[in-house]
Structure formats: C-alpha cells, structure tokens
C-alpha cells in the first residue's frame, strides 16, 4: 500500500505538533511530524474531523519524550557550558587563581569589601530615614495642618491654637483632630526623684489618630480629664519601676500633681512622635492659665495639629474649608497673607516635626553618591588588575579554546572568578559593617543597631549588591579575556595587544584619581569652612560663658540669685536675658522709623537683657549710653549698626535720641545707644537688625561670665558648683541644668561637622582603594618590564632614571585627573558654600595643594615598586632567557 498523498484542507491542531517539536526526541522529530501529518489525513478519511484531531493529539502526546524514551545514545553530545562538572571546574580554577596571585586577590577583596560595606551601611541609613511613620495603620488619611505665610512664601509646621476647635466645628470631613503642644523642659518629680523632661499636651484625639497599644488604662477616657498623664512603658518603669502605674501621681514643676491615666507600649525608632509623657490638654488651664487655646494672632511651631480625614476625602477638596476658617476666625483681609495646607504624615520627617529628628536629604544624597563612587573605584581596581594580567591567562584561554571551549563557557569561568572574589568581599563587608555601624550611627545621629543589619531586606539588598558588583567588575574583563584569539594567545607574543588595553586602564585610573582628588579638595575646603566657624569673630565673646535656665523670673528672686552667683571669685559678671547673644530661636518683631517722608519698616530681632548684657557677652557700645536695669518702661533701647543702616542713619552718634515705634501703634522707644554688630544668628544667616531692651518678664536664662578666658577644669568645676548652690537656693525642687555657650553655638554647625567627618572617611577609603589598585598596577608593570630594566641597567641607566621611567606613566594620569577634578571640586564647593552667609573664599591654591598631596601619595605607592624594580640585579633579571 502506497502512502497517501496531499493533505486535505483541514489542518491538525498546531499546538500538539509544536509541543512534539519541542519535547519530542530531536532525532526522529522530522519523520514523526511528517508521519503524523499523513496519518491525520488518513484519519480524516476514515472518521470525523473531531476524531482525527483527537487521535492526532493523543498520538503526539504519547510520543513526547518522557513517554517515548530516547532510543540511542548520541555519538556527538552537544556540549553545554553549565553542566555541574563544568561549574565545579570553574570554581576549582577560580580558587587556584585566587591563591596564585594572592596580592592582587587581597587588593581586590579588601577594596570590594570596603566598597560593599559602604553601600550596605548607606542602604541602612537611607532605609531608616525613609521609613518614618509608615507603620501607622491610618497613614493614608493622616495630615498635618501647616500655616503658610503667602507674602514670605514660607510654610510653617505649626499653627494657631484655635485651629483644633475650628476643625472640630467647621470641618465635618475630619474624623479625628489631634492637637499637640510640645513643652521643652519641665521638672517631673515622684517623691524625691526629679527629672528634667520634655513632654506634650494632647487630648484623646491622639489615640484615635495614631496607633497606641495599651498596657493599662483605656484610650476612651484617657486624657479627657485635667491633671492626667499617659506614660510609655519605658517611662513608667523609669518613674515607678513597674508598668502598673495607673492611678499613681507625678508632680509637674512642683505645682501640679498629675495622675497616671494609662501606660502605652514604647514607640518604634521610626516614629515622628517619640513622646514618653503625654499630658491632657485640660491640665494646661491649671498649669498655665494665660495660655489661650483659641488664639488666632501669632503661632508657634511647638503647637501642631494633626487630622485624620474621613475615608474618601482628599486634601485638595478642603481648600475651600480652610479659606472659610481663615475668613471666620481671622477676617476677610487675612485671606491675602495666610493659608492653611495639609501635609501628608509621610512627609513630615523631611521637615521640622515635634520628634526633633528630620532627615537630612542632601546629606543622604551626598552619602549615596560617595558610596557608589567608592564601590566603583573598587570595581575599577578589579577590572584593571584582571585585564592587566590577561597575558598570564592567555595560555590557559588559548588551550581551552583549542580543545573546544566556546567563548560563552570562558565568560562563565571568568564571571565565576569575579563572583568568588565578590562573595569573599561580601563576607568581609558584613564584618566591616558590623564593626562600623555604631560609629556611623553616631556620626549621622541615626538610631541604627546591629539588629537592623540582620534583616531580610538587608539580606536581599546584599544579594542584589553582590550580583551587581560581580557584573560591574566581572563583565568587561570576562569579555576581554574570553575574546582572545587562540592563535595569538598561544603564541608567546604578549606585547602586541597590551598597548590597546592600556588606554582603557588609563581611563579607569584617571576616573579613580579624579574621584579621589575631588573628595580631597572638598574635605580640605569643608574643614577650612569649619575652622572659620570656630574662629570667626562673632562680634561678642562666646568663651567661658555658662548659661542656666530660669524656671521663674520674679524680680526679687533674680536679684538674690545674681548677688549670690557674683560672690564666687571665679565669676566675672552675670546677666539675665531672653536668650544668649547668638541663639537658635529668636524673637522677631516689626519696628517703624517715622522721621522720613516714608515710614521705614524694619523686621527686627529683639534681644531682651539686663544692664549687664553687654559686659557679660563682650558686646561693644559704639555710641550713646548702656541700658540701666531701671529702663523697664519699654522706652529705651540699644540698636545695632545694621538697624541704623536700615533706617538710613550713617553716624552712630546721630542715632541717639531717635524714636522707634513698635509696629504700627503709638508706642515708641528712644535709642539711647548703638552697639557694634554681633552675630545674633549662626553664621549660616545674615545679621538681623537688632534691638536690645530691658524686659524682666522675658528673662529666661542666666549667663555667667567667668573671670578667666581659658578657665581650667578645676576652676570651671568650682564655679559650677557655686552656681548650682545659688540656683538651687533660689529654685528648690527644680533640676539644675547648665551648658557652655561655645558648645551650644557649635551645635549650629553639627550638620556641617557631620558632613566633614563623613567626607573625610570616604576620602580616606577612596584614596586607599585607588592606591591599592595603583600599587597592583605598578607591581604588574614592574614585573612585565623586568627584562627591559635589566637591559637598560646593563647599558648604563641609573637607578634614578629607571624610577623616573616607571613613575612617569602614572604621574601623567594624576595630572590629567587633577585637570578634570579641580573644576568639579570648585563647582561642588561653590554650591555648598551658598548655604552660608559668612564663608571662606575658595582660593586657587587649594586645588594644586590637593593635587600635590595626591601626587605625593601616588608617588609613594608607585615608588616602592619602581625602586625595587630599578635596584634589581640585572644578572638575575636577564638570566632566565
């Protein structure tokens, strides 16, 4: 019977055929496909189409390999590069190479370990800073009411005290309202145990808005009654030694007993609401009867209002509501300059918040960039050292290719080597991270612990980092090495292609040195700016001044305290004031000068201090007379030179006797004297126009100037104990706290100091890794040119000329790097210095200085190898051939 010819129109199901092609035995695939087609035609003739289809599918399925086994062993097996045996071989070879060139392996592993450790630590820091408040279960609906001053184009996190009640009555979209008032420092006492604490006032809204787990007490009635307090577990244990504290009493500032209404679980580290003591809002009436809870003129960032919006409400829908609030409580005219906005809870960690910690986004960005650069430098080392050594591997590659290895298999092998080194580096990075984490956490002031390091997320990041690093470092060398032509590789001719690879290596070295140079220049400049901060002339004397807070400013008490303090021989002078000559938080007020045709308005900083203010802080009087303690009627003031400039008076003496009005009212004060400018703010900011006046109601601190400008530790100790005795006599049952003015002022530059330390550390590592790479390259060059040096020496070259010969190439690279790095560093520093009103000039010589430093480091690195190579006995280097 002959075969049937030509298939009729209907076609068999394609998928079955395709399945067979993929899964069937490749050897019989062709004839089977044909046979089945023919059978299909036959089945169509003898039965229905459906039956034919069924039979076709059924037969095809039965012929798939697991069911129909392969009949013969393939005489020419298809080589597959990733068989277990080959993988094992890759590892064997990788290990052998690792041990064969121990020096290079060490450079690579330690460099990559430092780079990866940087990356992991920075990941931890970034992760911590970006996870604030995300644990709140209602996070998508919680907002903070912020106040925008439209004219100043500035938004403040705080708002008017009347806002809480306004939201409750005028905004039905708000499910709950949680006003929070933070109090800086008060004395809390249980029996004789006294602590200086900061705390918040809140009402039950805080528990409905944010997540709290109750250990005792209940959220429903907590904080509704006056004189109640809620503690965290930690604080309940601190004060009462037990979490079972409900019903017990804590005394606030020696005047009001607070009953513990409940104890809640401690807050997580990533909370913007780290409040250990929450006092009920109604308590405020007893503690501070003057506090107006429905105030609509003037606000403070210590008072913030949070709302939980009802489901489905979007903040944009409430613009009208807020405009209504402004109109109702502040009047129509306020609409032009005040606006309220809702800021989502997830954003408040990036600006001022009551928790006191906010993310320094630019520092984190800088840090991430530097981390990436350090890792990159380490990867470049790997690339350079691998490709430089290519000739050592040439024979191996040639032989592998000659006996049938394909390129893919070689790529796998070189990647395995890179992977192995990265894996060892990762292990080192883990150890480094554990060691470095505490100091990084301290340097960045981020509460990170070792437990943050051992999380699933960190593990995942490390694995990804491992893969990325392997590919970054390994792909280029793998492609280069595997691409060698076997003939070339087997011929003993290595110099031919070396020239071509050299340019790539040169490029990478230049990048490494550029990064190092930029970092060195930046570190130098930042340190000069910090130095400037420390030694700048502030216009007043900040040294040897101790400041102490005042819980109470009744005049008779203050008089006694001052007399008492001055009795110590160590104390030179003492002054009561609102704040120090320079301080972080200030009192700004608008003043008017009306002697000109046009009224001049001056936004002025108010310094309230007694007659001793100028002497204590060493502020110079230029004209007129100092203030007397009796000048309390708001009628006499001192002004600074900037103020004079604003009101258009050039000679200080002319200003004496001029009238200055408080705002637009009729009250005025007379200038009795002019003081020399002094920095009322940190050096980030300009000097404000400043007015000094005597207002005893606003004395909140005592500044004590010691006799000696550079007091010894012992004399400071004596003075302190004297001040403490005097202070405790004046304010019994209060906790004495003091600080040194110069230390307080230095805190304003904390962020810059941190940046400087981190950049220094990064610079150190970047330079170290780059130099290790350079050292490796120098070793390699010296090795490669052993014969050449031998011949040169035999022909009469001096050691010096040979060192020059070997170092010249590397020096050239440093010079190129210097030319690229200087403008980059210049620009970066220029941008950074913009942050400061008072700053150093970028001098041109700083860059050559950095360049010379880098050159010296590079010369030292290269020099060691060069000298060794140059001093080698030519007999030994030439004998081998």
């Amino acid at each position, binding site marked *: 019977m002959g*075969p049937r010819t030509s298939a009729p129109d209907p076609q068999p199901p394609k998928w079955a055929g395709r399945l067979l092609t993929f899964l069937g035995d490749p050897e019989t695939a062709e004839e*089977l496909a044909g046979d089945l087609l023919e059978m299909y035609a036959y089945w169509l003739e003898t039965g229905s189409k459906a039956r034919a289809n069924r039979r076709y599918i059924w037969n095809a399925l039965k012929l798939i390999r697991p069911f129909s086994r392969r009949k013969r062993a393939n005489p020419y097996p298809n080589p597959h590069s990733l068989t277990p045996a080959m993988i094992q071989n890759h590892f064997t070879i990788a290990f052998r190479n690792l041990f064969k060139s121990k020096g290079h392996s060490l450079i690579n592993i330690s460099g990559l370990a430092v780079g990866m450790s940087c990356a992991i630590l920075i990941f931890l820091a970034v992760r911590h800073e970006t996870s604030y408040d995300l644990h709140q279960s209602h996070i998508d609906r919680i907002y903070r009411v912020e106040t925008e001053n439209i004219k100043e184009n500035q938004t403040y996190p705080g708002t008017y005290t009347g806002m809480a009640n306004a939201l409750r009555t005028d905004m039905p979209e708000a499910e709950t309202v949680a006003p929070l008032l933070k109090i800086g420092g008060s004395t809390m006492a249980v029996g004789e145990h006294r602590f200086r604490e900061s705390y918040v006032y809140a009402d039950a809204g805080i528990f409905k808005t944010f997540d709290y787990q109750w250990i005792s007490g209940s959220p429903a009635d907590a904080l509704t009654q006056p004189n109640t307090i809620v503690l965290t577990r930690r604080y309940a244990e601190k004060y009462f030694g037990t979490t079972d504290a409900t019903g017990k009493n804590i005394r606030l500032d020696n005047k009001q007993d607070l009953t513990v209404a409940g104890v809640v679980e401690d807050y997580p580290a990533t909370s913007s609401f780290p409040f250990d003591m929450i006092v009920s809002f109604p308590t405020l009436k007893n503690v501070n009867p003057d506090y107006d809870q429905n105030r609509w003129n003037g606000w403070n960032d210590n008072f913030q209002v949070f709302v939980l919006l009802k489901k489905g409400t979007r903040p944009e829908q409430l613009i009208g509501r807020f405009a209504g609030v402004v109109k109702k409580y502040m009047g129509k005219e306020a609409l032009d300059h005040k606006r309220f906005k809702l800021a989502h809870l997830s954003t408040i960690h990036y600006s001022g918040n009551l928790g006191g910690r906010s993310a320094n986004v630019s520092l984190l960005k800088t840090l991430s960039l530097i981390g990436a650069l350090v890792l990159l430098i380490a990867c470049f080392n790997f690339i350079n050292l691998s490709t430089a050594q290519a000739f050592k591997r040439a024979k191996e590659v040639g032989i592998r290719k000659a006996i049938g290895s394909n390129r893919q298999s070689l790529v796998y092998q070189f990647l395995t080597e890179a992977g192995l080194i990265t894996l060892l580096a990762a292990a080192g990075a883990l150890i480094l991270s554990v060691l470095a984490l505490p100091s990084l956490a301290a340097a960045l002031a981020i509460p990170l612990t070792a437990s943050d390091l051992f999380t699933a997320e960190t593990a995942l990041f490390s694995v990804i980092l491992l893969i990325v690093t392997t590919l970054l470092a390994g792909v280029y060398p793998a492609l280069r090495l595997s691409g060698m032509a076997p003939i070339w590789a087997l011929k003993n001719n290595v110099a031919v292609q070396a020239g071509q690879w050299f340019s790539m290596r040169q490029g990478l070295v230049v990048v490494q040195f550029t990064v190092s140079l930029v970092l060195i220049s930046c570190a130098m400049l930042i340190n000069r700016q910090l130095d400037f901060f420390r030694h700048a002339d502030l216009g007043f004397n900040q040294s040897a001044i101790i400041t102490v807070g005042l819980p109470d400013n009744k005049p008779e008490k203050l008089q006694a305290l001052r007399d008492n303090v001055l009795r110590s021989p160590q104390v030179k002078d003492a002054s009561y004031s609102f704040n120090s000559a320079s301080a972080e938080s200030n009192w700004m007020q608008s003043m008017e000068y009306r002697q000109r045709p046009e009224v001049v308005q001056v936004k002025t900083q108010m310094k309230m201090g007694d007659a001793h203010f100028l002497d204590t802080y060493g502020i110079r009087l230029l004209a007129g007379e100092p203030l007397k303690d009796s000048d309390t009627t708001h009628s006499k003031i001192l002004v600074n030179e900037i103020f004079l400039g604003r009101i258009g008076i050039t000679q200080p003496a002319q200003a004496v006797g001029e009238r200055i009005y408080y705002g637009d009212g009729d009250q005025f004060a007379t200038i009795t004297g002019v003081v020399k400018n002094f920095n009322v703010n940190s050096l980030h900011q300009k000097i404000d126009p400043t007015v000094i006046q005597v207002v005893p109601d606003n004395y909140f601190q005592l500044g004590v100037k010691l006799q000696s400008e550079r007091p010894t530790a012992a004399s400071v100790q004596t003075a302190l104990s004297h001040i403490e005795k005097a202070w405790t006599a004046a304010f019994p049952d209060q906790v004495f706290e003091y600080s040194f003015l110069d230390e307080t002022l230095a805190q304003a530059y904390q962020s810059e100091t941190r940046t400087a330390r981190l950049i220094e550390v990064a610079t150190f590592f970047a330079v170290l890794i780059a130099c290790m790479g350079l050292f490796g390259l120098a070793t390699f060059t010296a090795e490669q040119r052993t014969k050449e040096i031998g011949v040169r020496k035999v022909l009469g070259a001096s050691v010096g000329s040979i060192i020059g010969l070997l170092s010249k190439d590397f020096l050239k690279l440093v010079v190129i790097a210097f030319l690229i790095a200087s403008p980059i560093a210049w620009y970066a520093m220029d941008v950074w210095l913009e942050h400061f009103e008072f700053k150093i000039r970028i001098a041109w010589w700083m860059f050559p200085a950095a360049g010379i430093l880098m050159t010296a480091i590079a010369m030292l690195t290269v020099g060691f190898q060069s000298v060794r190579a140059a001093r080698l006995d030519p007999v030994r280097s030439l004998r081998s051939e």
Partner: protein
Amino acid sequence: MKRTFLGEFEELVLLTVAVLEEEAYGVSVAQELEKKTGRSVGFSTVHTTLQRLEEKGYLSSQMGGATAERGGRRKRFFAVTTFGRKALREAKQVREELWNALSPNALQLMGN
C-alpha cells in the same frame, strides 16, 4: 548467540515491514496493519515498536529523500536485517512445528 524475545505485536510489525519491502515507513506500516488485522492500531505504538525493533537489531533504517507532500518532511524507511529475517523464520518455524504437532482431531475441534 543473543536471543531476543519477539513479542506478538513486534512480530506483526516486523512482518509488515518485510511485506512492504521498499515502502516500509511509519505511516504505511500502521495503515497496512490496520487493513490486514482489521483492528485499530495506534500510530504512536507502531512508531515506538519500529524504534524498539531497530534498537534490538531486527530492523535497519535510513532517511529517504525530501518529499513534496507532508510539508516537505523526509520519511524514515525501514528494512528487515538478516538478524530480523532469522528471527522471523524462527518464529515461523516454531509455529509450524506446533501446527504440525497438532492432531487432525484437535484441528477439527477448533472449527474451520
């Protein structure tokens, strides 16, 4: 000498290949078998059997030329090897001996 057992279906397939001579390949063997035995024969069974017979050495195969039909795919033609012919003869001989040993009565009892 290697003595391999020849199954009933294997014997039928082997015989069919011998009958078809030059034209023996998967499809022709399957169709011929269906025609001659009158029972439905699974193509996959035939294919596997052919493969197995080749593996055992009863059959040899070679690919034919390109064809115009069946999507241009080639056919694998099978031929009985000497060893295969010997096996067939042996099988036949066994049967004949058995038939011959059968008494005429018994044959009659079995019907036509």
